[in-house]
């Protein structure tokens, strides 16, 4: 039987090229409406606990903040051309690095949370080193197995990790949920600010350059391996941090929150929102996590049908995700506007 192989699978592009570089060219004049919307949203979210204090929606919003950061951190890794299917595992490393000392040594959460973040960063950076040899689909699959290995190690960890049942009795940070709300909200703002800064500075340009052509990047002195490791370390720092806070918030750490299934859903958040835009992950989390929890929770066992329907609708109608579609619409509108009144707005 002959091999039917000549297919060059390196051509399967993981991070679609279109619009990788578009945001850099965003002109300042277009920023103001966006900024005011963003400011309003932040203000509403900051004041919201006054209205919904103690309700279930607060819990959902706290989870949302966590997942916005985690999904965004996945996207940060992806802009360097790395389709990392181990983000859940990094979150899990952060969670267990915080949970194990908390449960067995009774360390304070204020120590274990940074520990979790640092552990995830270090492990992420160390693991990124051998993985920097792999590209495109091989990288994706390699990290898929990396995630599988991490989960299997946790599951085989005996009493220390609680195996597949998980580890209970992780010490809570606060007794009042409102504090968690503000902690998660604050961490989200800081994390997003960091990621925004990273993406729209020269570091982000380097990463996007590598994603497009690592050879060309090397020829102008942009080291591929170094920048890819940096991207993974940066992403896993936030994933680990959020994993650690998350497990202190939940009081438990369990492997199936960090396994392949969980990771794939994190990726789905990003794809639904739009992998090419900074706000895509946030929108995706809103679409796949907040909307089902707020409006469809009573469906219980039928809830997965709703999420599947959302995925299909997005896949069929919005190849660039929701933000991609919005951007296309606003572009068209503004072009028409400009055509209507010649040079109407030029500050």
């Amino acid at each position: 039987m002959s091999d039917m192989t000549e297919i060059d699978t390196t051509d399967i592009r993981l991070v679609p090229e279109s619009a990788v570089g578009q945001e850099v060219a965003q002109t300042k004049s277009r920023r103001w409406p966006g900024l005011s919307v963003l400011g309003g949203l932040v203000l509403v979210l900051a004041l919201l606990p006054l209205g919904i204090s103690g309700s279930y929606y607060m819990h959902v919003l706290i989870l949302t903040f966590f997942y916005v950061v985690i999904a965004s951190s996945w996207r940060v890794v992806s802009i360097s051309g790395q389709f990392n299917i181990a983000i859940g595992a990094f979150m899990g490393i952060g969670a267990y690095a915080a949970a194990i000392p908390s449960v067995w040594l009774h360390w304070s959460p204020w120590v274990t949370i940074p520990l979790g973040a640092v552990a995830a960063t270090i492990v992420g950076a160390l693991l990124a080193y051998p993985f920097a040899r792999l590209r495109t689909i091989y990288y994706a699959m390699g990290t898929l197995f990396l995630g599988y290995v991490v989960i299997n190690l946790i599951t085989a960890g005996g009493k220390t990790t609680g195996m597949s049942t998980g580890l209970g009795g992780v010490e809570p940070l606060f007794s009042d949920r409102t504090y968690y709300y503000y902690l998660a909200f604050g961490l989200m703002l800081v994390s997003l600010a960091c990621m925004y800064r990273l993406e729209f500075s020269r570091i982000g340009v380097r990463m996007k350059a590598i994603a497009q052509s690592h050879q060309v990047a090397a020829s102008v002195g942009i080291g591929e391996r170094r920048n890819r490791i940096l991207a993974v370390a940066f992403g896993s720092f936030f994933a680990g941090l959020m994993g650690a806070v998350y497990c202190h918030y939940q009081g438990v750490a369990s492997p199936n929150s960090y396994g392949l299934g969980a990771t794939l859903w994190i990726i789905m958040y990003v794809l639904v929102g739009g992998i090419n835009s900074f706000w895509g992950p946030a929108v995706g989390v809103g679409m796949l996590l907040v909307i089902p929890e707020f409006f469809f929770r009573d469906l219980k066992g039928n809830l997965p049908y709703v999420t599947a329907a959302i995925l299909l609708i997005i896949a069929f109608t919005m190849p660039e995700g929701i933000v991609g579609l919005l951007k296309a619409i606003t572009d068209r509108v503004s072009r028409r506007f400009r055509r209507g009144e010649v040079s109407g707005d030029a500050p």
Partner: protein
Amino acid sequence: MEIAVQTVINVVLLGVVYILMGIGFAFILNLLGIFNLAHGAIFMSAAYGCYLLVVKLGLPGFAAFPVTVLAAAAFGILVERFLFRPMKADFNRTMMVCIALSTVLVTTFNRFLGTRALAIPPFLAGTTGLGPYRVQTDRILAFCIGIVLLVGIILFVDRSRWGAQMQAVTQNREGAALQGIRFSRVAMLAVSVGFGLAAIGGVFMGTLYNLTPFIGDVTLIKVLMLVILAGLGSFNGIFYVGGLLGLLYGALPVVLPGAVVDALASILVLALLLIRPRGFFGHE
């Protein structure tokens, strides 16, 4: 000694199932460039489908088996036409579609049949003696059918017109198009064959073990391991690596306890992948 004999049988059988699943997955991957993350769900659905035909409709197992496989293949045609083709082989979009498909199938079977562990009644009940040892007759049957199918697939790919067209498309899509091969047809064929093979694997596992809506998840990971380790685009590799995985998962549980098996086997696979990033039989 008895353990050794049983282990060999288990290893071979698991290997055959993995190889069948892996080849199906590879067909879809090589021709359409799609990572079919719904492969495990198809595997599970086929097992349930066969169960329904046998238990609820009272079909004899030998009739239900081909019907299930054909139904899965037909489903594959529909999926290719209405789900995969509109995605234009975009990795991200096909991933979303596959996960949606898988979610729908798992949820459906969980809703309607998930409340108890089911099993497809054995095609041939009882055990057969192999020398001094007893082996489940179904296992021998599954093994024989599996081998016949594998030979069939090899002949199909190597000798048949359809197989030749698939090879041509895999190697050079434009060239094949110039020769008058219609890509859409070949793609449909690949997906239906892929789903059919997954269904065969599902029915095997369904007769030998039990059905739950989640059996596909475990198998999907094994299939991904298999295809990647073999090297994308390699068919020969799948046979060897399938055997290796069968060995790992058939033999390791005999010597090691529970979760350690998965941990060890997956570390091994990861190490191999890092040593040979393009798999063992893939092309550089």
